[in-house]
């Protein structure tokens, strides 16, 4: 039976949409008249070109003419659309329509895969620019109808899988046709994302920064390939090169990733169109600076169900804000003149598109921009001027509506695609709205019919008493069932000269005639509606947009700290009763009885003032830590993935920390490049990164890089022993040396980001901070470096540094260590808290670091332990968290001590900064106050108040019947060296 049905279906399709030159065996050849004239309509030729009382003439699926005076040919069918509107059908530039997303295969118990599975393609399986959407496409009639009902006529669809996903195809949603006609462009748009292909288990890249590095290397290799430098065939690079001129559409997914994608594009002269995530409003200036066109989803969050206070407490203010602020994202982008289109992508249900679009309009999106976002903008993204407008020659893809398409009360009647009609709501349904009266068995009833089209409904009353009733209106017949007391009365009828006339059947089965007489028009309730449609209050965005964010970014001030005890971190110096003047972000003067007009005075009496703490080894404020897919990942950089919104930045400044090095983790012998930032809470990534930052890279030794504690499956990656680790280094440095020599020789060379980075090390332009534990490997790495004529800059952790402190001194390497961590794994068995003191006594520059988001906010206490363990003086101990890490980071000419001319990175402490009883009261960075213990109390109050406000708004939403979602607790991933 099923087979027959399919057969019939295929027969009917082939017969009705057969191409002109195809033979026919199902009947005689017949052609359809495909000329239509739509008259008297308000026609949106483009969002800004509107013709009132105009005519749209279409023929064979294309617009032939449009305007006020169009001559209508005789063969045209004329459709009078008096009072109705015509819009171009919507275009969705980011779709997966008709192309199923592949499912990830579960492969428990398998060892990791490091090489690519595909042969003849690029070395990384997640680069799939060769995937052609056409070969994956299968028209999905059900989905097409859903999209048609939401106003879409054309979508650009693709296979959503991999980092480079291949090209898209431009398809109309015409279910009455075949792919032969529906596919408007076989190569339309080239798609990219930050997600790996689920079709491959290849490990690399495991991180966002690895993905970014991979994209860069791929572009470089494509260029190298295009110039004929590669002997083998690489179908992936060939496809990438041949699709270069298509629109490049990058699915980023949130504002931080939008910026990251754009950064890569800028480096290679590619302007991506960016699929955003809906939170672009948080840093709208940065978003504008990308110059990108955006594709925005409208999957606005549902309110959280906050009725259970235990659960409600777990939702963070930033998540509550997201619910409140997100619907204003399109409006804010529009106001900032950032071009964008809208997509149904990410919506669980396409039906929600219209509702959410209306919501965006209520939140301030103007209707012209909205229409552009659905027509002209996606058309221009896809470089196709025949869609998204109704100019002559364009596809006859258009919508017929009862009025303003963005009005909630408007009915979408028809969605024409390629000149074929798709009825969404019948246009021929009569308007029967009005107040009526009728009599049955001597009783008088009143009836108010409201609504539009098929959705017209009735409310029936007897006097003031509401009568239970069921009303339906279909095929222009009214059907009513009344329940008056215990009596059921059934009525049928049709409109006839403002009267409803028909048959009534009472409880006893008696039939008679009934007539409902029209008495008056339904009163317009528009005014009430308007009130409801007012956007609720949208709370202010802060920088960053989380609790404790700043309403405005802190500014440099002239600050005069009076009469404090100053630990300068210069030669163990302590200055009593001293004033410090801060101006233009620098330490301007140190002395007594200083004054400066207009300065903000901080009374330092009984307070201690120091340089800000510097953490040489941090993993906060980043979206990724390890790229563990290769044993060397010198090509990746943490600078790509800095997260300026991390609350741990605020917690760090509350502990007197002003600068940190965000290090790559220890998953591989050669890790990634560092980001060195100032903790300017509220700034964006660029505002935090040091200008002309010293260049660093993380290396690592020992158990982590040989995967000792990664489980029994991780036994295939080289190296698995310390012996292998040495060879990894020698191999890479040798290759880097040869690479550099070739580069300098002027001969053509394949640009390799990884080797470029390693060559920088050999050329003493980049410094190594190496995660290290036991003495043998520490010694080894120094010897490897010496073999290549450079020095290791810093050993970080360096828990057995005390065993080779003399060798370290001789080599000239510093040590950045924990105060007292040990016993968490085998290689830290001989870790001792006296390590720092012994290294210090041997003349090694020693810093105390954290590697931990909790410890980093009280590094002053960790430094104090050096007094207990090993007997350092207070000043020596203090240097290990200020000037010493500054030296190790090559920042000691800029920060790390209180010295005239240095950056004003200054902390005011309530007491001796090493004491467990002291608190950081003010943390100043570049002359601006970023943390103030008094302001912090105000922020707490503000958070409480704002939470209460948003919770009330969500409760309101729930009581109004809005959909809600279960509360979620934001769980922040806390990174350590060995975090995957």
């Amino acid at each position: 039976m099923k087979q027959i049905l399919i057969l019939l279906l295929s027969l009917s399709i082939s017969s009705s949409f057969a191409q002109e030159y195809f033979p026919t065996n199902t009947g005689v050849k017949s052609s359809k008249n495909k000329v239509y004239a739509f008259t008297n309509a308000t026609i949106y030729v483009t969002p800004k070109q509107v013709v009132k009382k105009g005519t749209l003439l279409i023929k064979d699926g294309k617009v032939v003419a449009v305007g006020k005076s169009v001559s209508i040919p005789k063969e045209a069918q004329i459709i009078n659309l008096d009072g109705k509107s015509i819009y171009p059908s919507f275009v969705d530039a980011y779709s997966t329509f008709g192309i199923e997303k592949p499912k990830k295969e579960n492969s428990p118990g398998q060892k990791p895969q490091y090489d690519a599975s595909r042969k003849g393609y690029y070395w990384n399986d997640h680069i799939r620019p060769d995937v052609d959407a056409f070969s994956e496409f299968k028209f999905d009639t059900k989905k097409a109808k859903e999209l048609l009902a939401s106003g879409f006529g054309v979508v650009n669809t693709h296979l959503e899988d991999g980092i480079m996903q291949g090209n898209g195809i431009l398809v109309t949603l015409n279910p009455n046709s075949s792919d032969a006609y529906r596919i408007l462009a076989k190569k339309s748009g080239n798609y990219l994302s930050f997600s790996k292909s689920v079709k491959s288990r290849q490990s690399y890249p495991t991180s966002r920064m690895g993905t970014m590095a991979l994209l860069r290397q791929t572009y470089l290799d494509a260029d190298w390939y295009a110039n004929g430098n590669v002997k083998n065939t690489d179908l992936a690079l060939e496809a990438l090169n041949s699709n270069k001129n298509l629109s490049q559409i990058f699915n980023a997914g949130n504002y931080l990733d939008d910026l990251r994608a754009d950064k890569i594009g800028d480096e290679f002269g590619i302007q991506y169109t960016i699929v955003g995530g809906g939170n672009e409003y948080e840093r709208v200036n940065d978003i504008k600076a990308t110059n990108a066109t955006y594709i925005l989803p409208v999957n606005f969050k549902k309110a959280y169900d906050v009725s259970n206070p235990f659960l409600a407490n777990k939702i963070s203010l930033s998540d509550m804000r997201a619910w409140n602020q997100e619907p204003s994202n399109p409006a804010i982008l529009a106001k900032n003149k950032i071009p964008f289109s809208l997509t149904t992508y990410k919506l669980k249900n396409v039906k929600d598109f219209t509702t959410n679009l209306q919501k965006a309009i209520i939140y301030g999106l103007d209707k012209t921009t909205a229409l552009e976002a659905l027509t002209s903008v996606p058309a221009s993204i896809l470089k196709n001027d025949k869609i998204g407008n109704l100019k002559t020659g364009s596809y006859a893809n258009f919508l017929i509506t009862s009025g303003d398409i963005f009005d909630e009360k408007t009915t979408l009647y028809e969605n024409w695609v390629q000149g074929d009609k798709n009825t969404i709501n019948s246009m021929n349904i009569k308007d029967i709205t009005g107040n009526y009266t009728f009599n049955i068995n001597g009783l008088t009833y009143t009836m108010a019919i409201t609504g539009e089209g098929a959705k017209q409904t009735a409310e029936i009353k007897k006097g003031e008493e509401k009568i239970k009733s069921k009303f339906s209106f279909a095929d222009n017949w009214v059907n009513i069932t009344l329940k008056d007391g215990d009596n059921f009365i059934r009525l049928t009828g049709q409109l006839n000269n403002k009267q409803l006339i028909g048959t009534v059947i009472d409880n006893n089965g008696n039939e008679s005639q009934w007539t409902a007489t029209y008495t008056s028009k339904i009163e317009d309730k528009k005014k009430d509606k308007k009130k409801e449609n007012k956007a609720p209050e949208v709370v202010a965005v802060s920088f960053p947009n989380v609790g404790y964010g700043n309403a405005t970014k802190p500014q440099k001030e002239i600050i005069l700290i009076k009469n404090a005890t100053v630990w300068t971190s210069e030669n163990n110096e302590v200055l009593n009763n001293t004033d410090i003047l801060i101006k233009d972000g620098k330490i301007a003067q140190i002395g007594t009885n200083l004054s400066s007009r207009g300065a903000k005075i901080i009374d330092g009496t009984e307070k201690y003032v120091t340089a800000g703490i510097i953490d040489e080894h941090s993993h906060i404020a980043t979206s990724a830590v390890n790229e563990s897919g290769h044993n060397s990942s010198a090509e990746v950089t943490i600078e790509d993935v800095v997260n300026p919104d991390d609350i741990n930045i605020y917690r760090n400044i509350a502990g007197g920390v002003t600068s940190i090095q965000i290090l790559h983790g220890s998953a591989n012998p050669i890790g990634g490049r560092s980001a060195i930032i100032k903790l300017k809470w509220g700034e964006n990534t660029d505002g935090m990164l040091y200008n002309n930052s010293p260049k660093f890279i993380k290396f690592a030794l020992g158990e982590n890089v040989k995967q000792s504690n990664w489980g029994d499956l991780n036994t295939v990656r080289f190296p698995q022993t310390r012996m292998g680790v040495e060879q990894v280094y020698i191999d890479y440095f040798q290759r880097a040396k040869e690479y550099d020599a070739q580069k300098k020789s002027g001969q053509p060379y394949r640009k390799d980001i990884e080797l470029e980075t390693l060559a920088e090390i050999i050329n003493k332009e980049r410094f190594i901070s190496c995660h290290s534990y036991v003495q043998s490997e520490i010694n080894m790495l120094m010897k490897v470096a010496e073999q290549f004529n450079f020095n290791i800059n810093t050993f970080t952790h360096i828990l057995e540094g005390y065993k080779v402190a003399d060798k370290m001194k001789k080599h000239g390497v510093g040590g950045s260590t924990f105060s007292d961590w040990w016993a968490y794994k085998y290689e830290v068995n001989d870790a001792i808290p006296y390590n720092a003191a012994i290294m210090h006594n041997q003349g090694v520059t020693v810093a105390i670091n954290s590697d931990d988001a909790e410890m980093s906010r009280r590094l002053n206490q960790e430094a104090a332990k050096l007094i207990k363990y090993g007997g350092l003086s207070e000043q020596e101990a203090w240097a290990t968290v200020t000037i010493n890490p500054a030296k190790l980071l090559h920042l000691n000419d800029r920060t790390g001590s209180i010295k005239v001319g240095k950056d004003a990175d200054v902390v005011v402490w309530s007491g001796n900064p090493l004491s467990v009883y002291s608190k950081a009261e003010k943390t100043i960075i570049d002359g601006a106050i970023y943390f103030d213990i008094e302001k912090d109390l105000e922020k707490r109050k503000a958070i409480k108040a704002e939470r209460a406000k948003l919770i009330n708004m969500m409760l309101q939403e729930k009581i109004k019947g809005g959909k809600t979602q279960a509360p979620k607790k934001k769980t922040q991933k806390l990174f350590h060296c060995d975090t995957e």
Partner: protein
Amino acid sequence: MKIKHIYNILCFLFIGNIIAQQTPAPKQTEAYSIEGATAHLGNGEVIENSLIMFSDGKIKFVGSANMRIARMGTVINAKGKHVYPGFIAANTSLGLAEIDAVRATRDFDEVGSMLPHIRSIIAYNAESKVVETMRPNGVLMAQIAPRGGVISGTSSVVQLDAWNWEDAAIKTDDGIHMNWPQVFSRGRWWMGEDPGLKPNKNYQKSIDKLKEFFANAKSYLAGNKTPKNLPYEALQGVLNGSQRMFVHVSGEKGITDAVNICKELGVKNIVIVRGQEAEKVADLLKANNVPVILERAHRLPNGEDADYDRPFRAAKILTDAGILVGLGMEGDMERMSTRNLPFYAGTYAAYGLGKEKALQLITQNNAKILGVNDKIGTLEVGKDATLFISEGDALDMRTNILTAAFIQGRKISLESHQTKLWKRYSDKYKNQ
């Protein structure tokens, strides 16, 4: 196989070699008088220029050095220094694991969920290298508790200078540790479930299982007890009040349920461990005499909106609410971090509690909560002479520098594997 075997032997030999423990001090034969120090008694009192005398392992005198009284035995001049009762760490797993990442050394979590019969004391490694690093910081006693399961097992209180676990025991099988069922759970996102935090569907089921377990135990204990059931037997102590029930739980709802249901189950002495949000149910805790063993202060705030110093203020908040508060260890790197116990107290002191009250957390309060305050916890006549002398404030990293420590009157070594390496390598460089 063969190679692995050899490897194990080698490993064993190697580990065997490097365990060079401090020799436990012999029984006190000589009396001591510590004179001139600032004595922090552990009960909130401070005596400047104090005199403390002890012999036969017990404290014989606590008072002012101005008293004209004969000094006993060896006189230690401690002018300018500070004397404290030995610190007590509650809820630790000291001696139950040596190196976190090495499975063979981990002995804190037994298979199964209802394990009141599991006893930590017999696995306690008195010769652990981690344990000996406690003493130079003033941590001289600890409760050794198992982890995992619903009922994890039975803990004991030990002193940290011993030949073996029998020697170490101050109070064997002091209490049973229970992990209260999770009130909220999140979906397993990796299985395609909504990752949102929601009420744990199995919460009631887990509680019902607990209730059933207790009901069965009670009927077993009321009957002729044959055949013998080890888990049920092990519950006798918490039902008759001779043992405490340490319920590990956080959150307003969880704590409330834990207290009410444990009472209903017939548990006499309840202690809440962890106890975040305990201040919200302070009245219930007070009414039922339930103390709280707080976590270490050095934690991140619970959630993005929480005050950055909220974990630092926890002890002050609970103490103000009238709750008896102690300090415990549980979580990441808990064993090696136990030596930082005084500094957690110091942090609580800095954030509102004040020094002497903060000191009480790890002395008198912990002793009371563990039920050993008749022997230890304060500098009072008749109690164990377990105490130490520090150059300065022992709650501050800068000044916690011990010059002498005594456990039950025995003058113990303040050396460790770590100080030995310190000296060995310092000497190496000196002699170069």
